[in-house]
């Protein structure tokens, strides 16, 4: 403990520096606990840190075994952080317009130092879809979706959808033929949205006399694309959703997800 200082003649300079540093007001205002060398201080470390407090204070020994968790949730989180960082860097060069989108992507490869940045983002995105799927698979196999964890399973399902949507919206941004036609095909699914898609079930019921309320210019697909086909409106909307909208939602849900792991009794034990 810091209060019980003993003068040790063999005390090194580094120890003295450490002791002085941990007594300064700046240090004490940041870290409101002593060195984590007891159960109490270790708990305080977790509870007094906004990032660590999402994490369980204690966990089962089996909970950290690789063969039990596969670390796929952790890998997904790591990939999300990596994608956020590389994506942020890509935003310094990429412009989401018909004129520049494709050439900016080419420039990111050809003209920008560390042209690998875009590939890291792309491969990281593919990897994240895989790790999220495997994480879900592991949680299913270990029965970790059962009470009291059914709420966290549902949050996870929503985050799986958000991961796929992030992948989908990012796919359009290179604005090459593959991107345009993939999104053309993919966004056509929104036509079949119940009631809100103009070819979906129930949409024909929403009409005033002969005037349809849901048509190709005001349905769910139109809201997604900002037009009746994949054009400049779609590129901008997908860009905004990809860079701001979806990451914001998934970040909030991740906080809930991690916190809920703690509240539900930590990582589930072996069956």
């Amino acid at each position, binding site marked *: 403990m810091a209060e019980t200082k003993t003068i040790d003649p063999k005390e090194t300079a580094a120890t003295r520096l450490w002791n002085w540093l941990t007594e300064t007001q700046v240090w004490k205002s940041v870290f409101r606990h002593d060195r984590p060398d007891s159960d109490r201080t270790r708990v305080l470390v977790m509870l007094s840190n906004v990032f660590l407090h999402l994490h369980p204070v204690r966990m089962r020994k089996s909970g950290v075994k690789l063969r039990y968790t596969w670390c796929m949730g952790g890998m997904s989180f790591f990939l999300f952080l990596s994608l956020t960082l590389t994506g942020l860097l890509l935003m310094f060069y990429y412009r989401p317009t018909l004129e520049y989108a494709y050439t900016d992507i080419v420039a990111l490869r050809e003209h920008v130092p560390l042209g690998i940045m875009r590939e890291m983002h792309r491969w990281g995105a593919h990897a994240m879809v895989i790790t999220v799927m495997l994480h879900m698979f592991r949680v299913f196999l270990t029965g970790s979706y059962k009470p009291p964890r059914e709420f966290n399973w549902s949050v996870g399902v929503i985050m799986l959808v958000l991961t796929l949507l992030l992948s989908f919206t990012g796919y359009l941004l290179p604005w090459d033929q593959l991107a345009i036609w993939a999104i*053309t095909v993919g966004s056509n699914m929104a036509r079949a949205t119940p009631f809100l898609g103009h070819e979906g079930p129930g949409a024909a019921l929403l009409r005033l006399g002969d005037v349809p309320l849901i048509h190709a210019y005001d349905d769910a697909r139109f809201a997604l694309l*900002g037009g009746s086909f994949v054009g400049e409106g779609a590129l901008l909307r997908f860009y905004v959703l990809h860079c701001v909208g979806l990451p914001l939602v998934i970040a909030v849900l991740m906080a809930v997800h991690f916190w809920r792991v703690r509240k539900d009794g930590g990582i589930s034990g072996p069956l």
Partner: protein
Amino acid sequence: MADDTKPEGTQPASPAPATPVAAAHAPRPAAPRPPAVPLPDLAGKTTTAASLGGGAAKAAAAPAKAAAAATRDPDDMSPLLTRRAWMGLAWGAFTAASAAALAATGRFMFPNVLNEPPQQFKAGFPNEYGMGVDERWKEKFGVWIVRTPDDLVQRASGFYALLVTCTHLGCTPNYLSAEGKFKCPCHGSGFRTTGINFEGPAPRPLERARIVLADDGQLLVDKARKFQWELGQWADSEAFLRS
């Protein structure tokens, strides 16, 4: 009920507010009457010291309250709205404002002006077209204009306008003139120049658009009106322009 009676106990002189909410509380008008009519559900709730004091205070203030029943006393400082009614009003207003903001956000996603090619356009004069598939409007308006000596359905010579949207998943097929067919690059669907599908995953023929002669003699194509073969609509007079 106990919460309501506590202020009465501390401020015995204040008359009851003449609001509907106050009128809804039974004990106030009931208090001056002979004590023969205590409501059965009140009996269990009037046992606390505070409410007993409140009951006594109300009995003392009863004559003044009866006089002021019709109009509000000018010295009456009690609030017109109870705290509960005020909170209800505030939450109602907040909910309404939030719903309006949500609706406005949804409407915001649908612009009033759309920078897209019009659905209807004039495609030039009939004599500008030779026999076969014409690709000049494909890029801008998404339409092939085909001139045929003998239409599949109408058994006459003339024009029809094929929409360039593949009926499988919405890609744009290419016209392969050497093979006389439309071929979709996405999944390989193939269509005859009539629009009939014959290979690949496309479930139905290409759609035709309305084609008529405008007043000035030009071809007028209207993509808002579509004709589907499988619904027998290609026999419609506006699905094919005889000439």
